[in-house]
């Protein structure tokens, strides 16, 4: 359903990821694990088209992804970046509405749906997104990504700087939208517990490449691997 093949990319002349291949099946939740600086975020940005590829390609829903980020979003690629990057001087409602409207969906429906999915956003509906707490912004960034009605959701470090209570809530929400709407999820994380709670499979990255692929059970069992790769 979602496939990255031979991905090579980086910034300027510096290559950060080399020949990365991974895939996410329809309705699957897959984790992308690895220490800081192994290229997880770069791979995510490669997948969205925000950095120009040096090689390789991305497929979304069986189609080869067009080069621009906007066209990939229209094909069903939702992206929640590390650091959230909500539109700070727009209201919570506008953040969600603009994402829906830019992809030809009803802004009103998208906002209503988001408020039902994330009740914590309701009292903040008319506040500027820049004034929300880190956790609230994270939830808003997620709601914004869902407003484009994605087939695949890329989450980059969604737990970073978020209080534990909201992390639990987020895991619950992600599981629910995955079950109910069949949205596939690829989540880059350092928080192993969070990943183990939602993902059924994981790729482990090291130095810009995929080092191994594992499923939840073997990762849970293999304490040595956890220690070695993630430093937990």
């Amino acid at each position, binding site marked *: 359903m979602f496939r990255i093949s031979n991905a090579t990319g980086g910034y300027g002349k510096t290559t950060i990821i080399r020949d990365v291949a991974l895939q996410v099946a329809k309705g699957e939740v897959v984790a992308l694990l690895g220490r800081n600086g192994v290229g997880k975020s770069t791979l995510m940005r490669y997948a*969205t088209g*925000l950095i120009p590829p040096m090689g390789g390609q991305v497929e979304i829903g069986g189609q080869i992804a067009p080069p*621009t*980020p*906007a066209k990939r*979003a*229209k094909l069903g690629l939702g*992206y929640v*970046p590390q650091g959230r*990057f*909500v*539109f*700070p*001087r*727009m209201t919570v409602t*506008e953040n969600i*509405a*603009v*994402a829906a*409207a*830019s*992809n030809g969906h009803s*802004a009103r429906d998208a906002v209503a749906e988001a408020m039902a999915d994330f009740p914590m956003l309701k009292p903040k509906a008319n506040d500027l997104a820049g004034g929300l707490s880190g956790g609230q912004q994270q939830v808003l960034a997620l709601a*914004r*990504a869902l*407003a*484009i009605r994605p087939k695949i959701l890329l989450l980059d470090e969604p737990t970073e700087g978020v209080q534990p209570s909201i992390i639990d809530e987020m895991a619950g929400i992600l599981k629910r939208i995955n079950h109910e709407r069949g949205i596939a999820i690829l989540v880059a994380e350092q928080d192993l517990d969070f990943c183990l709670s939602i993902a059924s499979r994981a790729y482990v990255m090291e130095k810009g490449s995929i080092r191994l692929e594992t499923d939840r059970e073997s990762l849970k069992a293999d304490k040595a691997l956890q220690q070695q790769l993630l430093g937990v």
Partner: protein
Amino acid sequence: MGIDYLATVLLSSLSSASILLIATIGLAVVFGLMGVINLAHGEFLMIGAYSALTAAQMGVPYILSIPIAVVVTMAIGAVVEMLIIRRLYGRIFDTMLATWGISIVFYQLAVLIFGTVTPGIGMPQYSIRIGAYSLAGYPLLMIGVAALMGAFVYLLMTRTVYGMKARASIQEPEMAQAIGIESARVSTLTFAIGCGLAGFAGAVLLPIVPATPSMGFAFVIKAFLTVVVAGPVTLTGSALTALGLGGGRVDHCELPHLGCG
């Protein structure tokens, strides 16, 4: 000094400020939303004035020549954005140089096409009396026009999908693209709207400021000053600054006439 004198001075100051705001607002939109200082803004104003004048000379009623001027300047603005400005985003001095060049080209084209002297269409002749003083009506009408223009831009930016896309694109350009906003198209439209507002200004001010090829120079310095003093962000800033800069200079002229500042 009677109350009538005071009212006269206040009203002329206000209309003078309104004229400055009308001339400036397009520049503020382009600078605020794109970070592009359009030194050809005055020439777009000139193009708007000539479009309206030409339409009026061909028999179109003056009021209908205004939308014609807007369409012409928006189209030219869109072409200029796609051919030139698009390549220079994020390079503020390069865009200034390029738009300055564009302004020279437009000025010379206007000289070639229309010559250096053109008859104005004459101010609609009506005036109001306040006590012992008489004020021309058309400049006073500009107070209302400026308010309407401000309201239009405000609603365009806050209540429309285009406005949300434009704001999203300036606040987080990468994320705007990642959620499906075609930012190149939004930028073209924003620049075209800025130019269209200049064209509207040129057309609506035609009875006060006759169309001449060099009219852009007289406007652009004041317009530029207004935007820079106001800062890149807010419309309200531009409005207030226009009020300050426009209101302060009314005593030099008999009528609020931008050419004589």
